[in-house]
């Protein structure tokens, strides 16, 4: 599916999102990121945004830009951060520092060996963390990316994609439901 088809599905009240998704998924609109990084960030944050129809559309748009390892890496980042964002958000929200001293005892081995460039995997993890809303994960992945030489502009580009993908996923889910309901009346 083309990006055009996705955009055409967006209703007029979401015109800002329609224009934004057209820009943030391009190299001009996402300064500092390669086409591959843009596609991988879009796919991982779409999965995290939980709209399967939209995610499949994003995936078919993203695939020509990604090799199998990156498709898998994007899925893996969404999968593992779906767990870590919840666990570590609990650690930073609960008002008892003792929990942070207890080992998590959760497997997260994919992070040690993600099958794609480690900094790219960090970037995907950060973008997914922005969608899932874990402050501690955002802080620590951002720090790791900056230490690895990734610029603020590149990080901002990834988060701009995450924001738009999340909003579009939500609107399309509601909009297709309400269109179906209207049709059945």
């Amino acid at each position, binding site marked *: 599916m083309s990006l055009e088809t996705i955009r055409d599905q967006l209703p007029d009240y979401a015109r800002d999102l329609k224009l934004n998704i057209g820009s943030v998924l391009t190299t001009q609109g996402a300064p500092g990121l390669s086409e591959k990084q843009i596609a991988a960030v879009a796919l991982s944050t779409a999965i995290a945004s939980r709209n399967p129809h939209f995610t499949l559309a994003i995936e078919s748009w993203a695939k020509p830009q990604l090799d199998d390892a990156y498709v898998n890496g994007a899925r893996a980042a969404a999968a593992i951060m779906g767990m870590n964002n919840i666990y*570590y958000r609990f650690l930073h929200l609960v008002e008892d520092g003792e929990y942070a001293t207890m080992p998590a005892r959760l497997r*997260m*081995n994919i992070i040690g060996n993600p099958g794609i460039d480690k900094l790219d995997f*960090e970037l995907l993890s950060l973008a997914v963390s922005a969608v899932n809303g874990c402050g*501690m*994960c955002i802080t*620590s992945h951002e*720090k790791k990316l900056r230490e690895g030489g990734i610029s603020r502009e590149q990080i901002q580009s990834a988060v701009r994609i995450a924001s738009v993908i999340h909003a579009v996923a939500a609107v399309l889910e509601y909009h297709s439901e309400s269109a179906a309901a209207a049709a059945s009346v």
Partner: protein
Amino acid sequence: MLGVGQKFPQFSLTGVVSNDLNNAFQPFDSNSANGKWQIVFFWPKDFTFVCPTEIAAFGKLNKEFADRDAVVYGVSTDSEFVHLAWRKDKEELRDLPFPMLSDIKRELTSALGVLDAEAGVAQRATYIVDPQGVIRFAYVTDLNVGRSPQEVLRVLDALQTDELCPCNWKKGEDTLKAA
């Protein structure tokens, strides 16, 4: 006896992998695991009573071990032909999903220090060896005590579970270096 932190000895043994004499035997050595974890367990003698139950119990968990990037090897000092005969004889062993290795020269058993001085056969030893070939868990009982494969799986899980995510970072600390 070799223990935790030491290199698992080099080995090159014949293993039994099926019930058909034509393709039952395959060579296995230190590199056969190909970068995976190894679970190596020993029993004293084929055709004895405690053994098939616990070997079959390791077999039942084989998929769990495989999901954790681990290969399982069962070893005794019997020959590969005795292994094959026992495998064909015992219903629980017929579909065993991992190789039964023959340490007939007792080299691996001796190098590990688990050759029972009196009985002249392997003690009931279990090892977990990491992808670098280092022993991370060692467990030996007397000849007649059975063991729990479930416990080996629990230990493997614990050994493999490390908080690699930078999310674990706390203010004021250096970030952890993901291996």
